């Protein structure tokens, strides 16, 4: 995935930032422990959000201090996440693997080669993850296949295309205890929908030039000057609407120890990132945020 789900750092308390970093490091360690060193490179904030959500309700969050490649000198505090972090790690590996496979099929020789290279690195990790979570693997594969068919048909059915992707994320909550399952599925569905659409918006210019499929180009009339103001408003509303549905689902979860960080991401992060991507103030690049103009 892509790294759009982030907290608004200025609004975080010091201890919350600490906790968020510990979750990020915890997921990274979990990736390595279960899937080997190569799996570490797929780590991003969206998966961290998933790990936190899956551990909501496990009241005791345990921490330990560990060294790692990125921080060899000083030990860092990280979450010892148990099952939830293992799940999040496995799901991330599976999802990344299948997206890489799609990349191999969809692109030309040279770009295809780089996807192949990355795929090779991840192959063993994937095999292990698919063994750990066969249900998620089957589901993810089927949904991405569905997505590929829609993309090839250049479908302008925005909801249907986004649904194929959103369904993968919501499946991550499948089988969690009953109380939480429906709520978490709804929360993750709209998170997936939001991620898919905001990524499409972010890639709009690039896809228009390269001729790659973009659901927004297929759905709206995108002229030389880009989207019309009316269409941009329409997209903004649908993104905010998903963010609102994420929020109302979240409010039904007993967030416990993660409350501060989750409220920041959900109440503030989603709306803020929506605004900034739509304004063109932020763009994702190599999984990191790049500040385009200094006024913000």
């Amino acid at each position, binding site marked *: 995935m892509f790294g759009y789900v982030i907290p608004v750092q200025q609004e975080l308390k010091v201890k919350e930032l600490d906790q968020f970093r510990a979750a990020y490091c915890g997921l990274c360690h979990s990736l390595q422990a279960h899937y080997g060193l190569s799996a570490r490179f797929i780590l991003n904030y969206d998966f961290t959000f998933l790990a936190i959500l899956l551990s909501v309700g496990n009241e005791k969050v345990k921490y330990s201090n560990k060294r790692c490649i990125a921080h060899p000198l000083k030990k860092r505090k990280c979450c010892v996440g148990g099952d939830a972090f293992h799940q999040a790690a496995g799901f991330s590996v599976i999802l990344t693997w299948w997206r890489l496979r799609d990349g191999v099929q969809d692109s030309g020789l040279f770009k295809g080669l780089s996807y192949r290279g990355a795929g090779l690195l991840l192959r063993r990790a994937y095999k292990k993850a698919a063994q750990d979570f066969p249900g998620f693997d089957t589901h993810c594969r089927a949904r991405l296949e569905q997505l590929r068919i829609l993309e090839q048909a250049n479908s302008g059915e925005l909801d249907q295309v986004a649904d194929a992707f959103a369904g993968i994320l919501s499946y991550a909550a499948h089988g969690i205890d009953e109380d939480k399952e429906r709520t978490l599925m709804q929360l993750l569905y709209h998170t997936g929908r939001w991620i898919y659409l905001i990524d499409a918006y972010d890639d709009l210019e690039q896809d228009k030039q390269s001729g790659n499929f973009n659901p927004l180009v297929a759905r709206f009339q995108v002229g030389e000057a880009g989207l019309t103001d009316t269409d941009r408003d329409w997209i903004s509303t649908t993104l905010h609407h998903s*963010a609102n549905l994420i929020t*109302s689902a979240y409010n039904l979860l007993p967030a416990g120890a993660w409350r501060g960080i989750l409220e920041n991401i959900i*109440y503030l992060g989603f*709306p803020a990132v929506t*605004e900034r991507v739509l304004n063109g103030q932020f763009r994702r690049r190599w999984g990191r945020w790049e500040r385009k103009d200094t006024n913000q």
Partner: protein
Amino acid sequence: MNDPYKVLGVSPNASDDDIKKAYREQARKYHPDNYHDNPLSDLAQEKMKSINEAYDAIMRMRGGGSGNGFAGGGGQSYSGGGSGQFSQVRMAIQTGNLAQAEQLLNAATDRGAEWHFLMGSLAYRKGWLDQARQHINQAASMEPQNREYQTAAQQMNSGGFAYRGGMGNQGGVDMCDCCTALMCMNCLCR
């Protein structure tokens, strides 16, 4: 029954005012209007019920009489009238039987305003917000005097509303809009 203080998230030593404040905040969070037509509205209703009970229990224990909480409007999503032909569809959507609703709507030959409204409601339940907005706006423009359609269109065009506590209100709706919508819905529920 759960400890009522725990339900409201306050300490048993809290003052009456603090309890009232905590109750108000929770009631705003789970108010049926934040979950109008939401697939999770039943869970929100349960929450609302449990905080109402907790508040009443605390007030009784403290000898303050009844709590006079929010009545919590029952969440009758589809009280607005509708022709007999589509009452089955409404029922199916309300009970979450989306496959049946979809089947009935696809088979329907009368594709007037109500058909569009129900197509929109169905799409909304699935989380297909783009389609939902198109259908509901279509219904509202076909029958501009129908308040049920107008309210729904207003909700779709503003991107809905969600409670975010004290943290900003990027919902795109100000409280006035919300109150107007509330009053409209109140009329419909009569």
